[in-house]
């Protein structure tokens, strides 16, 4: 039996809402003179406006799409529709051997993957000139160091003139130091400037909240000044926080750990057309957390496809950190299985202790995985609270979009929740209720 993606999983692949709408218009078998499938792929012909039908084919292992239509969106509506049809009306597909166009394409994809692996192997095998590397790194450190000195002066000016002046500042006031930090190859620091600006704009008790971001920024600035005195893991965290990330190849060189991983949930945020996808994982036996971070521009699809609510056997290589979380997938094995449970804390206080421990290791973390067991949801004066069996409560994040769905699934009884801890609330991303795992949507535009 070929691997079938559920409707939710297919919809999650869509580059935008318009594509989903367009694909739904194609869920008419009459439009498809040919619908065929085998173990590895599904292919079909879809009538379009022209004379010739579009040839659509999907490699089910990833899934990867190919279509003869001219659309620039990816996957296009035809690809989405074909996969949706497979999910909704699988009977309409004929089991058939692959026609040459499909077989050739699958083969070329396979070759490309192998070549890439070879190239990567060749690259890692190539001896790096340690002297040149050290020189290059020293240069970058100098640039960053200069940039941070500048930033230090800007921060001091800000304090000298007072927080009360901030709401009256024009866009340039914020843009210029941020741009200088990006030039100085410390884009991660610029993020705190953006965040401060947003907090001022949001109003409310902004002075306190801006003070917190300025504190975080200054802590990072001081940590970089002490770079040589830090442990290698701490150095890695400071570099990451400043936006100086390791090459993927370097991370993949390290030994990978293989374990079936639970896919706990997925959240997406968009900032200036750059979309960031976070997929939270948990080792089935070890309980070890992992974060698969992925970026996509505009309507491009994400490269990493893991469906929340499944367990996938993965080889993971972690980025070095005092609190190892972010990892890369080195290899995946076998078919995903349904997830029926996960490790978690029965008490909110225990879960918060773990958060505190993680923050002690890396104070710049602003999202952490949090899995909770036996929780109930309660509405309290326009906000929602997650309540544990010990009579403690934690507010759900204000941009949690589906509290009623969660409440409906729980039926008022305790259930297990997976989500993200954030400084301003818990963001539920999935739960396990009587009807199995249920994912919650989390797409935010900043």
């Amino acid at each position: 039996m070929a691997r079938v993606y559920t409707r939710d999983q297919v919809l999650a692949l869509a580059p935008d809402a318009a594509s989903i709408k367009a694909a739904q218009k194609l869920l008419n078998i009459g439009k498809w003179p040919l619908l065929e499938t085998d173990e590895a792929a599904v292919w079909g012909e879809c009538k379009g406006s022209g004379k010739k039908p579009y040839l659509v084919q999907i490699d089910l292992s990833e899934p990867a799409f190919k279509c003869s239509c001219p659309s620039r969106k990816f996957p296009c509506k035809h690809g989405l529709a074909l996969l949706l049809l497979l999910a909704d009306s699988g009977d309409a597909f004929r089991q058939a051997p692959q026609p040459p166009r499909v077989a050739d394409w699958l083969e070329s994809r396979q070759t490309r993957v192998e070549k890439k692996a070879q190239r990567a192997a060749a690259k890692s095998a190539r001896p790096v000139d340690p002297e040149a590397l050290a020189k290059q790194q020293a240069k970058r450190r100098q640039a960053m160091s200069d940039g941070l000195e500048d930033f230090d002066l800007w921060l001091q000016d800000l304090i000298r003139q007072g927080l009360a002046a901030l709401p009256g500042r024009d866009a340039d006031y914020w843009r210029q130091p941020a741009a200088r930090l990006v030039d100085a190859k410390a884009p991660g620091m610029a993020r705190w400037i953006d965040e401060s600006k947003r907090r001022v704009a949001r109003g409310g008790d902004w002075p306190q909240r801006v003070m917190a971001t300025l504190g975080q920024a200054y802590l990072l600035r001081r940590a970089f000044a002490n770079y040589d005195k830090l442990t290698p893991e701490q150095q890695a965290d400071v570099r990451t926080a400043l936006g100086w990330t390791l090459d993927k190849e370097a991370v993949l060189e390290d030994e990978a750990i293989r374990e079936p991983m639970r896919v706990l949930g997925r959240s997406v945020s968009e900032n200036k057309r750059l979309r960031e996808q976070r997929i939270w994982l948990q080792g089935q036996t070890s309980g070890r957390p992992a974060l698969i971070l992925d970026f996509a521009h505009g309507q491009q699809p994400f490269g990493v496809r893991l469906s929340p609510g499944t367990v996938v056997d993965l080889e993971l290589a972690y980025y070095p950190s005092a609190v190892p979380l972010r990892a890369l997938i080195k290899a995946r094995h076998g078919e995903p299985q349904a997830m029926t449970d996960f490790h978690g804390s029965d008490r909110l206080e225990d879960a918060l202790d773990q958060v505190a421990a993680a923050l002690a290791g890396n104070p710049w973390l602003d999202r952490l995985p949090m899995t909770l067991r036996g929780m109930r949801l309660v509405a309290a004066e326009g906000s929602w609270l997650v309540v544990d069996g010990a009579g403690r409560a934690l507010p759900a994040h204000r941009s949690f979009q589906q509290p009623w769905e969660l409440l409906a699934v729980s039926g008022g009884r305790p259930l297990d929740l997976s989500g993200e801890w954030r400084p301003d609330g818990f963001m539920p991303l999935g739960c396990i209720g009587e009807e199995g795992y249920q994912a919650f949507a989390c797409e935010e535009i900043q």
Partner: protein
Amino acid sequence: MSLAELAKSVLLGTERSLSAGLETPASAPLSQALETLEQRVEESPERKVLTRAAVLAPYEAAGRRSLAWPDHALPAACEPESTPLCSTAAAAVLRRLLDEQKALLPEWLELAAARGVRVPAVLLPRLLSGGRPQGEPLNQLIRAVGRRGLWLAAQNEAWSYLAAGAADELDDNIWQEGRLAERKGYLEALRGRHPEDARRALQEVFGQENATSRAQLLSTLALGLSLDDEPFLESCLDDRSKQVRAVAAQQLAALPGSRLAQRMQQRCGRLVRLKKRLRTTIEIDLPETLDAAMQRDGLSDRADGRGGLGRGAWHLMQLIAATPTTFWTAELQLAPATLLKALRRHAWRAAVVRGLCLATVRERQAELALALLEDKLGIGELLTQSRLTEEDLIRLLPLARRDAFLIARLRRAPAKEVPALLAQLDRATTDKGHRDPWSEALGQAALDRFAKLLRRAEHQQDWRLHSFLSTLAQRLPVSLASAATTEVRRPAKPIPSLEDKLNDFAIVLDLRTQMHKELAP
């Protein structure tokens, strides 16, 4: 010292006050951390502030704890369900309906209620947010959402319509304190259970209500109307408000045993005489004046709505509209067809037939409706003037009769009239918001004539046919679905302006087919 205090102290800047934000924190670990950091750098006051913020920010983030939440403040959990969950495939169809085809929701709910299965919990919020469905399907919605749905609805004010419809005990507070629409809903619900209690509740407060409320609330008596309501309604004919009097007169006219109905019948009796010679003829005198008693009974002298009738004929029309139809069928012993035949060349045909149409719709008289619809002279024009449509009469027919009538008419009609007939079908087969199912024969007849027209170039741009396509998709019995998809596609040349609609047509029929398959009893 906290971040909040630090922020407050530097609102105006270190420029203005040098000591701003430089207190020593009370917590031992914090002051230790500060000391270590401050030793290392030659500190400006600004840096001292920033260093404090750098220590306090992670300290406060890591120290954010949970709140105390006493256990008794948790709402009661939902009781376990007694009905099974619908199949995964049926749930998948429901999700598609919620996404893109809300018009098909009542059909899904009806099938699910008949099958005795319920909606998956996670879809309940979207389903309930769709709002109160029109007419009958509220019962079906209540059954399909199961206990979980009712439990959930009880916690969201926007969904209270569901709880109110399902509650065994009505909430008396709504009646005492609610807005007019809510009170009307309460009264309707009570009326459905205990008609007597509802009327008594209304009578108790009637004197204290304003005219609009009186009229609105009185209109709820139409539900479960009986002779027990007659004395109260009769007394309302003397109400101060014209609005209220009109509602009361209308209700009483609908009660054949009421004093008002009898008075109307007597008035008619004085004006109408039957002559039986070779054929039945009817002699009618026009009422000469509108006396005070007639005005009290709701007959009006106002000129608007007359629609070309003279003054006397206008009074006659109103009189007949308010007279029980048994006057014609029982007292005069006229079969509906005979009555209409006798009226054919009558000088006052327009007034009498208009009155009859109104009385027929009010009484939901199927026999008379059929006779009126089949009258050779046609009643279209007369209906329009009474603010009625043919569909109002058609939907009074029992389903089998209704379909036979519609089929015969579709078959007989010349091609140029067919688009209008098709356009009428949806409304004619929808009663109080509920879509009565079409028989296969009706579906086939509509499909045949529609598909034939579509093949003729002169009809291909008719917007009525285009919009009928969506009616057909939603109403056609699913057993005809696959035949229909090929049938409407038959024209060799595609019609570009219709491509999208034809595509939707196939999608809707396909969804309905899946839905019927998955929820078959």
